[in-house]
């Protein structure tokens, strides 16, 4: 397994980052650290996707000098998917940060367990 992993270095790195980010999102108690974990997880997936598109020795898919042969450019599809994904990631991060700001104003703490405990005492 190790030799195969060395042949796909970027994918391996992205999986390690994904694991760390996913665990942070799931198990960290501080809201800001959860958001950082989510961003790390998403960026890792984009690294994975972008690595899928690269071909050794070819250039970025912008036509220069009218050359439109397949052998001159890398695969453009993963770049497009990553563009879409980045916008989604930014949107979700802004929503989560807005939620964190409101929660902090209300409960004066960033710890999700403490917030849940404080919220349970409120009237529904």
């Amino acid at each position, binding site marked *: 397994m190790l030799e195969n992993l060395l042949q796909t270095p970027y994918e391996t790195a992205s999986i390690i980052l*994904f694991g760390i*980010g*996913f665990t942070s*999102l*799931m198990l960290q108690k501080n*809201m800001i650290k*959860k958001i950082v974990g*989510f961003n790390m*997880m*998403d960026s890792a*997936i984009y690294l*994975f*996707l972008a690595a*899928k598109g690269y071909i050794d020795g070819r250039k970025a898919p912008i036509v220069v000098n009218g050359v439109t042969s397949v052998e001159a450019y890398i695969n453009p*599809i*993963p770049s497009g*998917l990553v563009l*879409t*994904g980045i916008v*989604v990631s930014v*949107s*979700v991060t802004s*929503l*989560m940060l807005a*939620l*964190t700001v*409101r*929660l902090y104003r*209300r*409960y004066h703490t960033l710890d*999700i367990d403490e*917030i*849940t405990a404080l*919220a349970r005492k*409120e009237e*529904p």
Partner: protein
Amino acid sequence: MESVWQNIPFFCILLCIASASFTSVLPKRAARAVCLLVVLAVIAMSALLIGRVSAYGGSYTYMMGHFPAPWGNEIRAGLLEAVVALAFGVIMLLAILGGLDRIDEHVFDDKQNLYFIMLELLLAALLAQVYTNDLFTGYVFVEIMTLTACSLIIARSKGRTLVAATRYMIMNLMGSGLFLLGLSFLYGMTGHLLMSHIHEKVAALAADGAYPRALTVTVALMSLGLAIKSALFPFHTWLPDAYGYSTPTSSAVLSSLVSKGYIILLIKLFYRVIGLEIVRQTRINNVLFVFGLVGIIMGSLSAIREKDIRRMVSFSSVAQIGYIYMGIGMGTEAGMVAAVFHIFVHGMAKSMLFLSTSGLVQVSGESKLFRDLRGSGYRNPIAGVAFSVGSFSMVGIPFLGGFISKVYFAKAAMLMNPTETLIVLLVLAASTILNTIYFLKTVITLYRPVPADGPADARRPAFVVSMLCLIAVNFALGTFSQPIIEAIRAGLRMFA
């Protein structure tokens, strides 16, 4: 040139999307009117589509743009998609009508048009997921649905809804990440994003025996991602808070539409992208089956312990989603038909339960505890009747939808090997008893004779109309279920 009616799915989706940006500049009343008109238009067009597609006799693809798939986007419409779109449209319309006055109460006036924007975009995302033939389009609209559903929860701004929305977003983001990673693996292995092409490639790869572990892990990642987002058993902790504390329209829409959208995408994944045989080989469906069974029992047990009526109804949702996953997990066509029919039954009954609960709570001094709801069935008769009909449907009393779906689950279970049949029948029986305990207890509480001293109930026309329509639909699902089941079966055959 294709016939005009084939443009209907495209019209529905783009109408919802265009109306969303239009609603952002409208004041409160105009926004409400636009939203209701858009949903009515979607219902009308979907009904027309059902008629034409059954006459056409198969599903057809529709190019979104000048380029054929796989280079351009494509949507595909068949009988099942049209029926599902109609059902979702009807549920959304009745949910909005039933909770209209509560929206006025709970959401700030300046921000009400934002609420209706979210509803329209939710409908657009649902329709896009139902009709899409491309996996990445499905992912983008899954994200739209996640964000709009979160906004529906936070529309009612109280401490507990904010916490519920945060926990909802955290679980949903985990699910999205897993789904996107699975999608990337699948793209890396097959090189296609169009569902039909992925199917051919995956079948070839499985036959060759290439990627033995990667294929299993990919299917597991994608199913796990969607299962987390639709609140399958161990991942349901966000559900009671999110459904219980938001405004009634949001609870109805969330419980009936949002989870079901993800489940429809999961069924599409199993049928059209991976193929049922390969899914059975990877045994993912067995995992979903077990979680579904456990969810049924645990959901009902948690519901019995609740003292707050809305949280009780939310825990009952967990149990019903367990039923649907049990049907999907069986991995047979009969199981899928039963699961899809239960999606409709649950959607209609659960939205009715949430909306009638809000009506009952209103005449009990805004308290949701059982001791204050005593006798509210007499104070608000229409809500009481609606709640009773919904409860009977969930328990499984004949002439209502829930009975038919339980019968079909049992019939599907008979086709499996004897141990599994026994387990399924036992779980069905146990859950019926557990459902009876908490639902009938509530109905009896509602109709306990107490001296009439509650506030007089102002008749709200939208609420009454919505309740009557929902009661009628629930009885229709129970009595005229045969054509619907036939349509689902034919639609599933076209679906692959």
